[in-house]
């Protein structure tokens, strides 16, 4: 801590450099699936928290989609009140151990942090993670006081962050909550998509156990739309239904060769590896192609997760193929850095044109074309345009397509009177999650299209409040349509 006396007006603590979490060495970690960062030590956490200026009008808070009282929890950490800090966060965010690991902080709280104007911003995400981990590891997780039972029953469809949040909020309010999850495991993308090395499954399981301990009932292997429809749930005595089925339908590129053996959607690749533990084959029975030269198409978190999974499955070469440039990549900065440290190659401004196969139908190579950046498009990002004559071939044996997901149509298809967007998502009011169907609410990726964990949670919180209003406003009588239809337009 070398203070510079010539700048006396600035508080000294500004001079403390942003703390880094210790991490597994890149060469070692690509041999395993263990989490990469170890997390802050207690001293580091206090030191990092002391970098906070405790602004009166804290900007960071505006950047947090769920309005965590950031300065307050940072102050508690600085004072060594780690469990208090965790509880402070939990007033607003039920899943801090998860958000601390996967939120795009550089786009949210940390982007607006005042310290960040001159120096690097306070590591709000790392500290959130620290507090949550500390509380969990202490075993002093407290169950919030539950309101007396209301006798109302709510069905939550999907157990991703949106569904888990709705369940957590409503159970506290005294309602009976049942989660219906299509897969055999609870957690949505948090368990089937995001890999262990980024979000340990034990962290997710702890949150799920916490909900169960509070009385949330969870039915896995229950596909709403097939096993039971939304209308049947309402008929069978649920007073409200929340739909949080996510954006689970993988998109493909529509280039020749996309059905060759060795071409995966990122969903399939990650599901095999994470959910089914194919990386432990043959102890686990699910197979996966352990490619030596893997090309991952896309530039988001899903692409980074796939490329890094490929390395851990034993690839000599793992490549990100992205048609725009580095600055447009939607992935979290931390993940891009981690991927780079681990040796993932970035082929930017590159567009796959065709995948070629051998005589047995396995992937052999990929034809790509170089791009250059042209005028900005509707999203404000500069549109990539192909450079003529720049086609070239790369030898690959596995291709993972990570270019996005559409909403899963199972629930929309079997709920005929629910209003949809043209792209297939469910139309829901932004403030309440109310859909066009009485007593049915929706939130998360099924409403917004593929977005983020924290936005799904935010939507879940709002919907839970609206559901509670619907339920408790009606005294022991079945729910009535509350108010007019306030559908957002597409």
């Amino acid at each position, binding site marked *: 801590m070398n203070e510079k006396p010539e700048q006396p007006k600035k508080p000294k603590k500004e001079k403390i450099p942003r703390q880094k979490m210790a991490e597994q060495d890149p060469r070692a970690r690509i041999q395993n699936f263990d989490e990469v960062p170890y997390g802050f030590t207690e001293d580091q956490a206090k030191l990092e928290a002391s970098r906070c200026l405790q602004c009166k009008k804290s900007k960071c808070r505006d950047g947090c989609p769920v309005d965590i009282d950031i300065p307050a929890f940072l102050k508690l950490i600085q004072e060594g009140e780690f469990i208090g800090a965790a509880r402070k966060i939990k007033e607003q965010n039920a899943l801090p151990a998860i958000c601390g690991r996967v939120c795009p902080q550089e786009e949210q709280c940390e982007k607006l942090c005042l310290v960040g104007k001159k120096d690097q911003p306070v590591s709000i995400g790392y500290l959130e993670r620290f507090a949550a981990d500390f509380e969990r590891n202490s075993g002093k997780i407290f169950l919030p006081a539950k309101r007396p039972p209301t006798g109302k029953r709510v069905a939550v469809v999907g157990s991703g962050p949106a569904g888990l949040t709705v369940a957590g909020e409503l159970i506290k309010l005294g309602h009976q909550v049942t989660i219906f999850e299509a897969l*055999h495991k609870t957690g949505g993308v948090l368990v089937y998509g995001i890999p262990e090395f980024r979000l340990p499954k034990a962290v997710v399981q702890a949150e799920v156990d916490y909900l169960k301990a509070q009385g949330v009932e969870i039915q896995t292997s229950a*596909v709403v739309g097939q096993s039971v429809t939304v209308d049947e749930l309402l008929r069978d005595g649920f007073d409200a239904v929340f739909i949080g089925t996510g954006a*689970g339908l993988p998109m*493909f590129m529509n280039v020749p060769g996309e059905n060759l053996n060795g071409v995966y959607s990122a969903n399939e690749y990650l599901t095999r590896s994470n959910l089914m*533990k194919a990386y432990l084959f*043959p102890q686990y029975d699910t*197979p996966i192609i352990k490619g030596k030269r893997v090309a991952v198409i896309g530039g988001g978190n899903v692409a980074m997760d796939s490329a890094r999974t490929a390395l851990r499955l034993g690839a000599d070469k793992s490549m990100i193929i992205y048609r725009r440039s580095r600055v447009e990549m939607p992935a979290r900065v931390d993940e891009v850095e981690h991927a780079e440290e681990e040796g993932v190659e970035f082929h930017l401004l590159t567009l796959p044109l065709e995948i070629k196969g051998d005589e047995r139908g396995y992937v052999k190579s990929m034809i790509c074309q170089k791009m250059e950046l042209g005028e900005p498009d509707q999203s404000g990002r500069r549109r990539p345009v192909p450079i003529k004559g720049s086609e070239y071939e790369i030898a690959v044996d596995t291709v993972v397509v990570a270019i996005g997901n559409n909403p*899963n149509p199972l629930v929309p298809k079997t709920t005929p009177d629910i209003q949809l967007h043209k792209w297939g998502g469910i139309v829901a009011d932004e403030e309440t999650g109310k859909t066009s169907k009485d007593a049915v609410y929706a939130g998360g990726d099924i409403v917004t299209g593929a977005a983020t964990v924290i936005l799904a949670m935010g939507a879940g919180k709002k919907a839970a409040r609206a559901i509670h209003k619907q339920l408790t406003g009606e005294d022991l009588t079945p729910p009535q349509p509350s108010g007019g239809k306030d559908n957002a337009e597409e």
Partner: protein
Amino acid sequence: MGRKVVHKEQLAPNVIRMLVEAPEIAKKHRAGQFIVLRINETGERIPLTVADADVVKGTITLIFQVVGKTTMLLRDVPVGGEILDLVGPLGTPTHVENFGTAACVCGGIGTAPLYPIAKALKQAGNKVISIVGAQKASLLILEEEMQAVSSVLHISTDDGSKGFHGLVTDVLKKILDSGEKVDYIIAIGPLPMMKAVANTTRPYGVRTMVSLNSIMIDGTGMCGGCRVMVDGQRKFTCVDGPEFDGHQVDFDNLGARLKTYREMEERSRKEYEEHLCRLQPAAS
């Protein structure tokens, strides 16, 4: 939420019929639908057609051929034992209506998924002509059941040990050539057989449905692993199928995709067999 196995029997060498407790699936299930199961914590997820359902007893019938480690593990679940996860019914049910005359063509284990469909077609008022094929007589399954739901039942065996000596497509061609008006055909069996049926019926222009057995994981449209090309369009077998227009399916691509994990599957199977061998002396 394990599912209890309540009955198990061998129908033919390596073909097992199993009854599993699943009351809500039994109630919901319609012909053509399937379930996905995972036997134990380290198991893979595989799809199996629901061959029958008993709403009163709350059970579903699974009929499967023992081909790899997972079906061996399933075979080895004792009566009274449990299957860890079982989800369904999945897939789009068969479109059943009174077409007039419907031909139900099946080979080998394909008789199991075809049986409930033939039954439904018969109930809808169709004249059901069934053609059941097998390599040899001892491998024929569900003969009585098929007899009960068919107006006419043809049997064919590759070696001539029962019924017609030849392939199901030979029988089918004869019927089509005989001038009998067939309005609808459904074929379920090994991929080459379904392809052959589709090729046989194409010149006659009779609508021919096939039921595809793609590799699946979730069975809900989430992974895309079960994708097939139908009329140049990508379809997910688990939600858009499993039945598709046989004249439009790219069988060759599906055939190649089914072999994706052949070597790994072989390895799993061998290791499990060796494991069983090691247990054997101690047990007997």
